[in-house]
């Protein structure tokens, strides 16, 4: 039910509001006063357009830069809404109107009316959403508005010839279209699904191949693990073959034996030197003798001087005698030559005696020094021998410490035995290593081959996995397609049945309803039957007077056709409604006074909706209902 309508800048209205009551409201006024404009404003508010108006600009008041309508109404859900719609010229534009709408719910709380936004173009809501919302809360769509809610005087009777829009308004076209499109979509899905069996077979094949590949890979991996273990064992054996820790011990022992051997040679050399040296006792005796002789020589030091003096006198006397000197050079006295010669002989005899007992002290000293040196050297040699013996003992001890435990034989024998044993072991190890290496190489080759095969298997498995994933996706996709095709077929069948039911029932029920309404509004019950052709919705009537069925548009006069047309429209209201309101624009035009009065008095009694707004410019009687007089001047 519309409770309030505000019209601004809309055709002849500058800004005017109207309040409406429930039930029937008669809107009257002179021609061109703006009665119909109120209905156009309601139509504009609900749809954004007006049938017959080329654009919103055609609805613009010549003095206004924008038009707007505010409609306060109660919907079928019992809630009150305020619908505002405007079209305005933006700044600097001359011909392009920009539209806005807002739908709010009015909620009364503790005596205050609150406005709650439902939809608004300012919030990017679209006309589609608004149209759907309005259809939801009023049951009025564009098509329904044109056929049944906004009933225009000039169009009332035209419906008797049928109207292709009725199929749409009654939902028959929608059901048919839905059926067709569901079938078309189902067909598309079914065509796509045709390849499903082949794909499922491929999937099964790939799954089987994946299973085999997995088993093969597991077997190969198991073999690989076993081979790796064998390789590890062989590597350990090789490491063991390379482990010549005894060589180090043997080398240390050989070095110790070499040191011992050097010590032994040193001792031999020292002992040989000692053996070649003079006897120590003899040397000590000689030193004693020489020391004693030297002491004696010291006691004969006066004889030595005498001997030197004798030798000097002998040399001088022999020189003088040889020279024939007969006088003394110092005193000049004559020399007795004979005597001189006799003295010379004596002197020579004494000298000979002295020299016979004379001792050579220098020689003694030299000899003693030599002997003492020899003795010292001998002592040192003995010490060296002792040292060499100690060194030899230490070297032997060190070498034996490095010898294998339990071996007590001669060191050189031990060394030889050990070296021979070690060489034998080395040969054995080399042989073992050669055998192990051969095995290891064979294992390595097998490992490489096996790894290559596993890699190949994995690559093949990867390809199979990818193919499997692709097939799973595709098969699942097609299975969903198949399920959707099934749903589409079910929906198509439902829509087809709906279409048939609607079509079958619509004509019959509309005709019955129309006849009832016609009887209620008509003064004379002149028709025995009304039927509607289900294909074209052409109305056929059977007058009681003739009993012959004929098209309503041919059998009746203008007033009667108007009444039948109105009955048809109101039958549509009953079928497509309930609506919160119905707008009747001069439904009495062309009726005689009798019929007009009857219609105005009876129409609200039909109970078709909560509110009927009825425009008339003819004189009103005492009909029950509210009245709004449109003056034709803007407020």
């Amino acid at each position, binding site marked *: 039910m519309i409770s309030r309508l505000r019209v601004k800048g809309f055709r002849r209205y500058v800004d005017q509001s109207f309040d409406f009551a429930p039930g029937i409201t008669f809107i009257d006024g002179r021609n061109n006063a703006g009665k119909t404009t109120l209905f156009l404003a309601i139509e504009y508010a609900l749809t954004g357009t007006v049938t017959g108006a080329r654009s919103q600009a055609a609805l613009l008041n010549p003095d206004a830069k924008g038009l707007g309508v505010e409609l306060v109404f109660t919907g079928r859900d019992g809630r009150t809404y305020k619908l505002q719609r405007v079209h305005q010229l933006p700044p600097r534009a001359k011909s*392009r109107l920009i539209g806005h709408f807002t739908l709010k719910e009015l909620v009364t709380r503790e005596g205050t009316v609150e406005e709650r936004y439902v939809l608004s173009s300012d919030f990017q809501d679209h006309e589609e959403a608004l149209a759907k919302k309005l259809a939801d809360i009023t*049951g009025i769509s564009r098509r329904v508005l044109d056929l049944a809610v906004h009933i225009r005087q000039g169009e009332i009777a035209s419906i008797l010839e049928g109207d292709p829009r009725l199929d*749409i308004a009654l*939902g028959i*076209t929608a*059901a048919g279209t839905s059926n067709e499109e569901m079938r078309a979509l189902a067909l598309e899905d079914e065509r796509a699904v045709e390849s499903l069996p082949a794909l499922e077979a491929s999937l099964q094949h790939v799954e089987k191949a994946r299973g085999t590949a997995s088993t093969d890979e597991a077997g190969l991996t198991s073999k690989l693990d076993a081979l790796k273990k064998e390789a590890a064992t062989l590597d350990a054996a090789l490491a063991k073959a390379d482990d010549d820790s005894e060589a180090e011990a043997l080398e240390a022992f050989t070095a110790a034996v070499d040191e011992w051997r050097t010590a032994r040679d040193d001792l031999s050399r020292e002992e040989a030197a000692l053996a070649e040296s003079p006897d120590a006792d003899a040397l000590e005796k000689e030193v004693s003798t020489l020391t004693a002789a030297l002491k004696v020589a010291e006691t004969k030091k006066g004889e030595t001087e005498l001997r030197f003096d004798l030798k000097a006198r002998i040399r001088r006397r022999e020189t003088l005698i040889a020279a024939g000197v007969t006088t003394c050079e110092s005193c000049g006295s004559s020399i007795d030559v004979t005597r001189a010669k006799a003295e010379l002989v004596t002197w020579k005899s004494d000298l000979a005696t002295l020299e016979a007992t004379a001792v050579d002290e220098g020689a003694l000293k030299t000899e003693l020094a030599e002997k003492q040196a020899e003795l010292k050297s001998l002592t040192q040699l003995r010490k060296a021998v002792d040292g060499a013996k100690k060194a030899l003992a230490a070297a032997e001890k060190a070498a034996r410490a490095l010898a294998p435990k339990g071996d007590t034989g001669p060191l050189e024998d031990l060394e030889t035995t050990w070296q021979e044993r070690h060489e034998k072991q080395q040969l054995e190890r080399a042989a073992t290593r050669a055998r192990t290496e051969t095995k290891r190489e064979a294992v390595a080759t097998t490992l490489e081959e096996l790894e290559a095969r596993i890699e190949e298997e994995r690559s093949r498995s990867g390809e199979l996995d990818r193919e499997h994933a692709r097939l799973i996706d595709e098969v699942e996709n097609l299975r969903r397609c198949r399920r959707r095709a099934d749903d589409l077929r079910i*929906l198509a069948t439902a829509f087809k049945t709906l279409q048939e039911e609607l079509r079958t*029932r619509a004509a019959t029920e509309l005709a019955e309803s129309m006849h009832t309404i016609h009887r209620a509004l008509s003064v004379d019950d002149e028709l025995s039957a009304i039927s509607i052709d289900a294909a074209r919705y052409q109305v056929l009537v059977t007058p009681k007077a003739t009993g012959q069925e004929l098209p309503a548009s041919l059998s009746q006069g203008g007033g009667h056709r108007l009444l039948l047309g109105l009955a048809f429209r109101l039958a549509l209201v009953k079928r497509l409604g309930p609506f919160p309101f119905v707008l009747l624009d001069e439904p009495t035009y062309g009726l005689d006074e009798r019929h007009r009065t009857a219609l105005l008095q009876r129409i609200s009694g039909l109970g078709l909706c909560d509110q009927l707004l009825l425009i008339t410019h003819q004189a009103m009687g005492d009909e029950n209902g509210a009245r709004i007089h449109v003056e034709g001047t803007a407020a």
Partner: protein
Amino acid sequence: MSDDHLPAHGPREVLARLLEARPDLVEVAGSLFDYAQYLLDDDQRLTKSGALDGQGRELFKKRALELLGGPERKDDQDEDLDDEEDDEVDE
């Protein structure tokens, strides 16, 4: 439109009865019917014979597939149909 406001012979009520065995499809069917009605409500989307035109049918199919879910179709991805109203009006 909620069921409270449906007339006894309303399309949604009939669809609910027809799809009693598939209650999951009732809302889809109702929404599709409403959408078809919405599309048919615009004269510009009608052919001369009063049927829904090609673009309207494509919009309807697109909505149907959206509501039903399931795999996308190649042609669905390629199309970019303008399903929006233009509330600007040229004089």
